[in-house]
């Protein structure tokens, strides 16, 4: 079986501004964000990418989702090399495969909870978007708050709407970027429980980016990042 995510020798290097006065003959300074990353994730697997702030986690997630392009190396999603696709092609692939949950929720403030969940369905032209969104919001426990705008929802409620929005499309692969990063411990735990429940129900492959070891521990496998490289698990004392 082919992995749903296949990452080979991935590097992301960005140029830095030359300090004033520095001679132009010296090589331009660069910042290595990610170096030689190899990851393979099989369908149905759950993988946590763990690392401290600045370790390159979010950059890696952006590259895996085709939101950004690597400097060298390749990313294959569901057998398709992202480098062979243009921006619109990558967007079409995302529409077919991916669901997202973000640290900052990213709900559209002008839309109600239900409309936020309807949006990806509408963009994909799925009929009966309203009904599907209502059912999904009921599933995440927000059946009474369909018409509420994000600013009138608590952080936990907003993230549940985001979960409903991600799962309503029944994605093959869910990418979650620090999903509890903006929530207190208890609310975060409830949201994570819900995420794993939905994941199990739909048999979705889960890629979770976090700095929270406990949360990472709930995934089947952990990849650790430090200074842009994959590092081995710490030896348990």
């Amino acid at each position, binding site marked *: 079986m082919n992995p749903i995510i296949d990452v080979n020798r991935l590097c992301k290097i960005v140029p830095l501004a030359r300090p004033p006065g520095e001679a132009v003959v010296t090589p331009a300074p660069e910042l290595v964000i990610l170096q030689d990353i190899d990851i393979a994730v099989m369908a149905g697997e759950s993988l946590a990418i763990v690392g401290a702030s600045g370790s390159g986690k979010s950059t890696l997630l*952006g590259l895996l*989702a085709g*939101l950004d392009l690597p400097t060298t190396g390749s990313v294959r999603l569901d057998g398709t090399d992202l480098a062979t696709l243009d*921006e*619109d092609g990558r967007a079409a692939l995302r529409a077919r495969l991916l669901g997202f949950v973000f640290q900052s929720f990213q709900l*559209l403030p002008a839309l109600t909870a239900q409309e936020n969940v309807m949006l990806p369905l509408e963009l994909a032209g799925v009929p009966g978007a309203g009904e599907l969104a209502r059912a999904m919001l009921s599933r995440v426990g927000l059946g009474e708050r369909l018409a509420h705008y994000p600013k009138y929802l608590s952080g936990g409620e907003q993230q549940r709407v985001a979960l409903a929005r991600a799962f309503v499309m029944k994605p093959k692969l869910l990418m979650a970027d620090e999903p509890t990063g903006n929530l207190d411990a208890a609310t975060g735990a409830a949201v994570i429980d819900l995420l794993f429940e939905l994941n199990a129900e739909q048999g979705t492959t889960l890629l979770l980016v976090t700095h929270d070891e406990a949360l990472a521990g709930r995934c089947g496998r952990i990849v650790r990042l430090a200074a842009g490289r994959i590092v081995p698990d710490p030896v348990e004392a």
Partner: protein
Amino acid sequence: MSELKLALRLLLRDWRAGELRVLALALVVAVASVTSVGFFADRVRQALTRDAHQLLGADLVLIADHPWKPDIADEIRKRGLAFAETAAFISMARYGEASTLTGVKAVSNGYPLRGKLRVSAGLNLPDNDTDVVPLPGVAWIDARLAMALSLRLGDAVEVGKLKLTVGAILTLEPDRSASFFNFAPRLIMHVDDLPESGLVTTGSRVTYSLLAAGEPEAVSALEKALKPRLGRGESLQSLENARPEIRNTLDRSQQFVGLTALLAVILAAVAVSLATRRYSARHQDAYAVMRCFGASSGRLLRLAALEFIALGVAASAVGCLIGFGAQFVIAGFVTELIGARLPVPSPLPAVQGFLTGLALLLGFALPPLLQLRNVPALRVLRSDIGLPEQGAVLAWGIGVAVISCLLVWQSGDLKLGLTVLGGFAAAFLLFGLLAHFALRLLDRGIKSTARAKGGGSAAPSRTMWRYGLANLKRHARTNTVQIMALALGLTAVLLLTFTRGDLLATWQATVPPDAPNRFIVNIQPEQKQPLLDLFKANGLTPPPVHPMIRGRLMSLNGSPVKADDFAERDRRMAEREFNLSYMAMLPDANEVVSGRWFAPNDAAAFSVEEGIARRLGWKLGDTLTWQVAGRDYSAPITSMRKLNWDSMRVNFFVIASPGLMDAAPTSFITSFHLPEASAAFANSVSQRFTNLTVIDMSAILKQAQSVIGQVVRAVQFVFLFALGAGVLVLYSALLSTQDERQKEAALMRSLGASRAQILSSQRAEFAVLGALAGLLAALGATGIGWAIASQVFQFPYHVNHWVWLAGPLAGLACMALNTWAGARSALNHPPLLALRES
């Protein structure tokens, strides 16, 4: 789901969330002001044209020096047009022993077709409009004829073989122009009496006119049909070639109305641009999220374009309706003022308004939307990634191109359109630069003050002031944009209040109330001094008296002048006898535009009016040869003059240097202002010098002033709308930074700042912004006012110093309102809501 359906759904959601209200309001107000200005201007324009037709007495006048063949009159009637005819000539009118040379006009029923005659039942009695003409056997005479012959109502005045009963005193003929013929005393009779008068014989100089009036299309069709059929001595007069002095007034008034429409368009563009900028800033995240969901950038662009076009169509439709309704309201009370029914508006302004709305949207709203397409999807993970900057130049380029086309289209006058556009573009750039440097300068000042104080702790209120002033630099970019927009809005407001008033006042002042109202012509050299003495004896200031010589142009640079060398219109001018003069001093209301005025020891020379020089192909240095009483006078042209024809003074196309033509047969002419109270002076002049003709210009002057007065009032109403658009720009400018300020206030409150502290910090920042924007606006209004006055309307422009006080005060007032409104919404809502929205 079809894309349009989804776009409409997105539109409804954005609308409900209040995201599009400002943009829609900007569009509605823009289109409403453009259409109401358009509708109203269209009606005023039609009314002005119609009123100007009164000055012709018809829409079209056919003039001949012989009786018209009956088939021409039949042609006019056949086309369903109103018809009248007149025959005018000079004749002696007699009563008892007295007689005087009189301008006689025989008219048919229906005359005049445009405008009305006014008559009174006796000298110095109130006059009224009348719809009839004198019956056969009756004459209406003007006051001068009544006085000259001591005629009263019921007396029988003799004209040729006729004895006509005086039926009324004629006080106004709408079509009486300022030609020399018309300055003689006046008598109007019925055309049916003409054959029996014995006055019309072979060789008698009679001007036969056929008058036509009706629907503009029918009139122009008639004009087209008759033009090729005109024979020798026949000509056609329409509004285009009649009465240049009235034409001038009309042109200017249309320029004023056009200018107002231009301002509304520019202001609307700024408002739409500001509103979309806000929309686009607030929708970056939404676009990043949608791209993350897999929507292609092309799809998002199509959706946004459809959403906005739907909004544009709806807003333009509402704007057109409001504009249409509003102009009826204005027209309602303007009708009272201009004393005439305004014609029904044409549908063109609605189309124009609609297209304007869509063009504004395309030019100013779509470019920021196009940029939204480029929002990197990565923004969902890193909110610090914003819009790429590259598209900005192109986006503004599109907007500027669109508005340029709109301006030229709206004004219908390339020079006016480009002057206004150039003025605003220059002002905008200048405002940006000045605001930028002023903010930097202030920042430096604040820092050096802080250093001087050694950074010690100050009173909390002063700290907040310092914090507010430091914000000027922190928000340098948004502040610069806000100052630019605010200054632009205020420029428009100042321009429309102060500068507009100055422009209109200057225009009205071109025919001052003390302008000369009497001319005396045919003064013989030996009468000159006794006449001036008579002025002094009656307590009047003796006016300047100018020599007048009748001469014919014989050759230009030695080559004989042939009529065939000129276009038809100029031919008459080249062939006719000119009134020449000579004088040492440049007369009032004259300005030398090239060459130089005569100096005492110069050789013989001519100074000519630039307009006639252009038409007849005269250049500086050309030698003109004039023939006066069989003798030739030659000299080169050494200067060109610009004349103020509105001045009502004696003006000459050609002036000779002193000495050149002194020996030629000369009479003298003068013009002067005679106060109403001294009106009898004119009679004593006529009695003492029987050969002199005293011409009363006051009726003509009154007519000209009343036309200008009507136009001024109409224009002022149109200005109100552009003013409304200016206020909207101010509102959009204030709103453009409100989100940022609200978040900041919420953050400060959550950090423990008190209400008073936040207000104090905002006040400091806004006071500087307001004052700066106001100063720039005063600068802009003065500059643009000067450019319009001197470059477009050719008025001398006087700076209004109040504008320098009003500008900053208005700026401060706007920002105070902004502080109040912004602080109210920031302080009255829980800070958490504002923070959550961010």
